[in-house]
């Protein structure tokens, strides 16, 4: 009996148990759970079960409580990557016993899990030399990876730098980031979104995370990132992106209209946070969740596989899909 909801149910459970944050490991754990407990007796059956579970999980991520619509995009990409990983490993195995196949697959997935878990540390080592003493870093939004990077650099590596954080309305993620940076002694200042160009004059580099890195080498990230990138380009400030390599997706947007449906519209999420604007909720709005930053605005990408220029992303993607 094929249960395609197994991974999804397990995922919901784990999300409740674990502290909020990045859900990449949780996704892999849920799929690993399915793999370990599979009752299938044929290769095709196993493949089918994994495929159904992965698809159901990635398509219903938006229904999971505690998960933002934005993170579901990154996880969708990870799900695809996982599926591709499994399929190519499975086709490479010539064993006949399903037990052996299953245990080899489990071992490979656990390798993948290790890889994902260690990706943060690797991104840190890629990016560290670009965080020099005395610089001012401009950050947009609150990517957990950017937070990790800055905190580690200041605490473990004793780097002395100051940070300007933009509010990132309407979710106002910037507040949380500023607080956590101040807590470890980094000189952080909050700035309104409208003052991005103003603040960039003082900044030396711009640092953002990414929900997805697309085939062109551009990124899809929280709304406002494109604006920062355009200002950075005009003011000749380097624009750096930090992300893990499992966020590379074979998408190819040309314009803002080509973004995936899931991030084009905030739908029912509140647009305004201020109490004064409560009576304007009936106005027609254009409320995208994410925007697309083209590759000519991105200077470098710091990933767990090394430092990439935007054009190298496609090379990597072609290699992954042909591997």
């Amino acid at each position, binding site marked *: 009996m094929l249960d395609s909801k197994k991974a999804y149910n397990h995922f919901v459970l784990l999300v409740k148990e674990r502290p909020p944050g990045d859900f990449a490991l949780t996704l892999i754990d849920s799929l690993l759970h399915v793999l370990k407990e599979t009752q299938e007796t044929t290769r095709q059956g196993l493949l089918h079960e994994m495929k159904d579970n992965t698809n159901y999980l990635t398509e219903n991520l938006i229904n999971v409580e505690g998960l933002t619509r934005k993170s579901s995009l990154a996880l969708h990409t990870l799900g695809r990557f996982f599926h591709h990983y499994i399929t190519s490993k499975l086709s490479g195995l010539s064993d006949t016993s399903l037990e052996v196949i299953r245990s080899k697959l489990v071992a490979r997935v656990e390798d993948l899990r290790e890889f994902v878990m260690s990706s943060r540390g690797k991104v840190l080592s890629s990016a560290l030399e670009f965080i020099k003493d005395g610089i001012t870093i401009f950050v947009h939004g609150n990517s957990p990876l950017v937070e990790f990077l800055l905190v580690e650099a200041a605490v473990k590596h004793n780097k002395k730098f100051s940070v300007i954080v933009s509010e990132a309305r309407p979710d106002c993620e910037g507040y949380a980031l500023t607080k956590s940076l101040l807590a470890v002694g980094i000189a952080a200042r909050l700035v309104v979104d409208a003052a991005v160009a103003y603040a960039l004059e003082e900044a030396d580099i711009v640092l953002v995370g990414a929900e997805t890195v697309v*085939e*062109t*080498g551009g990124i899809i990230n929280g709304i406002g990132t494109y604006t920062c990138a355009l200002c950075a380009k005009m003011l000749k400030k380097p624009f750096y992106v930090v992300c893990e390599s499992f966020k590379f997706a074979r998408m190819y947007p040309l*314009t803002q209209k080509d973004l995936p449906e899931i991030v084009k519209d905030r739908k029912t999420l509140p647009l305004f946070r201020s109490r004064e604007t409560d009576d304007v909720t009936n106005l027609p709005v254009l409320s995208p969740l994410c925007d697309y930053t083209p590759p000519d605005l991105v200077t470098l990408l710091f990933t767990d596989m090394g430092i990439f220029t935007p054009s190298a992303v*496609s090379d990597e993607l072609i*290699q992954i899909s042909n591997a």
Partner: protein
Amino acid sequence: INAEYMGTIKMSNLISHLEKFEVNFQNKDAPKGMHPDIICLGHKLRNNQITGTNARCFAILITLRKIIEEYRGSPETINKNISVLLDEVRAYLRTARKLGSGVESYLDNLKLSIFNSNRDIGLGLTKKLSDDIGDFIDQKIRKADDLIIKNGLELINDDDVILTFGRSYVVERLLRECKKKFHLIIVDNPPYYEGRQMALRLARQIPITYTCISGVAYFMRKVQKVFLGASSMLSNGALISRVGTAMISCIAHMYRKPVLVFCETYKFSEKTQLDSLSENELADPQALLEPGDKTTAINLRYDLTPRNYINMVITETGLIPPTSIPVMLRELTRIQGTN
């Protein structure tokens, strides 16, 4: 020494390294024993009766296959004879018109496969080569075009305004097969006005605006996407296409409109080139002038569009950025090597 004289020297310095257009081709004797089909093909290529990289590649390979199949020499020396025949045909066709990098690299491979063939293969060689050519046409041209069109159909949305330049076979087929409602702007260029053919063929089903290059800046604001064909694509991501393409891409880039190039992988070349003039083809300068006009005219066939003006390349293997062309070449050679 006056300004006019200096002007002529300057102009000729620009193109003096390019092969001059030979006016009297008809009087050149074809080598003895050259197959009449090849001579006919040479004239057609010369007189622009067959234009477009795909059409020329197809015509050359079909004719070549025919003469290989008609080989009636001795089976013992067949390897050498066919190799020599290939060389003669290529040399003759080159005097008519340059073949194009895709065809040249395929014919080099063909020669290599003759060299690597069994000594005792005998008349089986003709079958082997004929099959090889047939496979190439089928896989790299026909099926590749089908896949490119399949990929390309997803890129057209309802109410789009699409701009295209000149006449590309793949782009024309794509636009014809698309069932969505869109508006087409066809940009054309003297002296050959290839866009007119495209306009005539598509006017029945698609609303078309036809203009020349001088009008492009006016229309570019309203355009959603620019669709271009290719003669070849180079390893540094540059596009070699009909002269005028570079200008269109430049204007599109200025207005931040996406430029999409539709190109089969056989057109990818290992070469790199930085500007339009270092390697080009000169066509008949008289085509640009009124009869009896003695002005010096330069009729270039191709130009080079740099990589940063191109947003996406659509090939049969998928959608890739122009920077990934050497990657694709590497992967294709790797796959070919394992076969």
